[in-house]
């Protein structure tokens, strides 16, 4: 065969192969559409059965229901249930072995499969899922998977103590990311005292900043003394974090250093102080913010204008009449 004949034959084979794959997919879709009514009926029966079991009623269980269909039905019901009902459903699901497949996939060789399994486990948040997620966070070979597992635990309020979280994610030897910030904030209400203890460690300033920021999410008013002390820190990033945390915590004592923050020499701190004033509805700060409309920094001026619109009563800002085009 000549070179050109080779090209023709190879291309024809490729075309044939891809056409067969495509037609198979069309057929799969067609069959799926044809069986939709039957599938919907079955899904409704599974849903009904689980709801009855959660309520403690007797049901005539059909063992032929595939595990995947049960998993789908439970995923649908789960967001609708709260408290005891939710816990009972999760227990029943575990007893039925519905999550066995997901737990098996969580051991997959492929990183993407393990992460997809983590997302399912996050949604369920049952004891078995939390246990497996902790295991993955501690020992998975992929840092991304460990991080995803940490997120799933965070979403279920089951993160380990912050020091352990940071150690497992190997976080302290790099700069914090937005994901780390979110994790610290998730850990803060669970371990408020440990967050304060963490600040006593030898830490990079970048991490100290994020831990102070997370204190705002701890709902622990005991953190206010630490914030007070940090409000005089020479590092402007830390002073910024203090403003954010104070605004979030909403303790009245914070007003003092927020007012001082409005005259801070660093523009970023002034910006954060304006934001904190707005969040706390600090009308006492209005004159100082009005002064900031003449700040040398453009962003401070813009933020001050915006803040005044939010802090001053609506009557104070008289919008011009809309011209009719």
């Amino acid at each position, binding site marked *: 065969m*000549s070179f050109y004949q080779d090209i023709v034959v190879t291309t024809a084979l*490729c075309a044939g192969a891809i056409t067969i794959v495509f037609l198979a997919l*069309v057929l799969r879709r067609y069959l799926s559409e044809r069986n939709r009514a039957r599938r919907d009926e079955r899904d409704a029966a599974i849903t009904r059965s689980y709801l009855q079991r959660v309520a403690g009623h007797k049901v005539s269980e059909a063992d032929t229901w595939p595990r995947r269909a049960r998993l789908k039905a439970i995923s649908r019901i789960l967001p609708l249930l709260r408290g005891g009902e939710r816990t009972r459903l999760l227990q029943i699901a575990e007893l039925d072995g519905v999550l066995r497949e997901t737990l098996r996939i969580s051991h997959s060789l492929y990183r993407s499969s393990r992460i997809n399994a983590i*997302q399912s486990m996050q949604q369920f948040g049952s004891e078995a899922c939390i246990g497996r997620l902790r295991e993955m966070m501690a020992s998975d070979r992929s840092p991304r998977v460990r991080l995803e597992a940490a997120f799933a635990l965070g979403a279920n309020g089951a993160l380990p103590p912050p020091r352990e979280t940071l150690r497992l994610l190997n976080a302290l030897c790099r700069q914090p990311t937005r994901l780390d910030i979110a994790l610290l904030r998730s850990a803060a209400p669970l371990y408020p005292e440990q967050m304060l203890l963490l600040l006593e460690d030898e830490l990079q300033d970048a991490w100290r900043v994020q831990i102070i920021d997370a204190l705002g999410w701890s709902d622990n008013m005991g953190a206010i003394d630490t914030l007070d002390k940090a409000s005089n820190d020479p590092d402007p990033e830390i002073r910024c974090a203090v403003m954010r945390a104070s605004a979030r915590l909403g303790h009245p004592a914070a007003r003092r250093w927020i007012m001082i923050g409005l005259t801070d020499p660093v523009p970023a701190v002034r910006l954060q102080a304006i934001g904190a004033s707005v969040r706390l509805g600090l009308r006492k700060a209005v004159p100082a913010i009005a002064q900031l409309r003449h700040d040398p920094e453009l962003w401070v001026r813009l933020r001050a204008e915006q803040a005044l619109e939010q802090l001053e009563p609506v009557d104070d800002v008289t919008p011009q009449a809309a011209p009719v085009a």
Partner: protein
Amino acid sequence: MSWAGTIYALSTGIVWIAFTCFVVVALRNLVALAQLLIAAWVFLTRVKPGDGARDLWHRYADLALPISVIAPAFNEQLSIVQSVKALLALEYPEHEIIVVNDGSKDDTLGELLRSFDMYEAQATQIAALQHTKILGTYRSRRYPNLLVVDKENGRKADAANAGIGFARTPLVCIIDADSIIEPDGLLRAAEPFMYDDRLIAVGGAIRIANGCTIKDGSLQKIGIAKEMVPRFQIVEYLRAFLMNRVANAHTNTLTLISGAFGLFRRSTLVEMGGYRHDTVGEDLELVVRMHRFMRDNRREYRIAFVPDIVCWTEAPAALQGLDNQRARWQQGALETLQHHRGMIGNPRYGRIGLLALPQIVLEDILGPPAELLGYLVLPAAALLGLLDPMMAVAFFFVSVVFGCVLSVGTLVLEEQQLKRTPSARDLLRIGMAAVVENFGYRQINLWYRLNGMRRFFRKDSTWAAVPRAGFTSA
């Protein structure tokens, strides 16, 4: 030169032309095949979008970078209110809508002012990137995150630049006023920015909205247009977004983020001076210039692509309208290559200089004339006995049959991974379009692209709007 000598020289010339056409077309398709395989790998190994991190972003909304959605509008009186309502309803922790009325001749501005209870405000422009005069800025009493900028007419690039100048957020999303953004499109597009601080731009997959049911500026039901031209374009968009862009983003050689939806870091855009005003292909030019700017300044950066659909757009429903659009795209590509010719093959620009731009040269400069010429020269040379007739058959297979393979391959990817085609019947219809487009439509497109080349050489800068048929309302 003797008659025999002339004939010999002529036949040698024809043979060389035939060989060149064959090599160019084969090379083009080999690149596309490599892209298809890379895209398949990306899809197979990607993490499907889930609620994992998103759940935390909902709780800690301030960690999601605020976005200004900039919608340049020109003569959009009939649809602007619905479009803006849909934009205001997008799912994102903090986003502002900046509508730039680009000197509309109709009552686009009046519609906006009346419908959103707007008053004239003295909004501060942080960077004046536009070339035309700003006539006024308006804020809404009902929607504090809506700003309307009224300016003199100056085309989309100028309007987008005006909007960028008014944006205060770290990210700006530049769209067409008639783009239909998926409700979670902003969230999906912004997610990569949360993982990587080096990111300066993110593009997303765009689909054809012809045949879909649209209500209040939102997509209600996915459908397939009855006409063949939009169906062919569905196949083209699938190839462009699921194959080309996914593969290019994976190999860090992405040079195009569609004008219908692009998310950019505002500070980088302002530093670069925004869009260029003197090109008809401003979206391609912007991304290429971004690469150039970042590499010239030795900054670390990344440009990403989200393969999930973020936006739907109306495509020309007939050949009339498509001709102008395709000629403009071709002209834009050539203008970009001319502006940045120093980057082509230049190792200083890394993969962009050595891979991405030569690929555009192959695709946009050499490809169209080589393919069109090949259709004429190869059969003629074979008939005259100058070439092995099998070569002409092989050319047909390399260009047309292989084109079908690539299109159907992309459809396989779509069905296996995204499944956004409404039904098996529609899937089959698009599959048929993927085959049929190679017999006629593809060649007509090559002709339009040659027209684009002609416009480029004549420095024709006229811009004709693409006629729209409008959407099916629910």
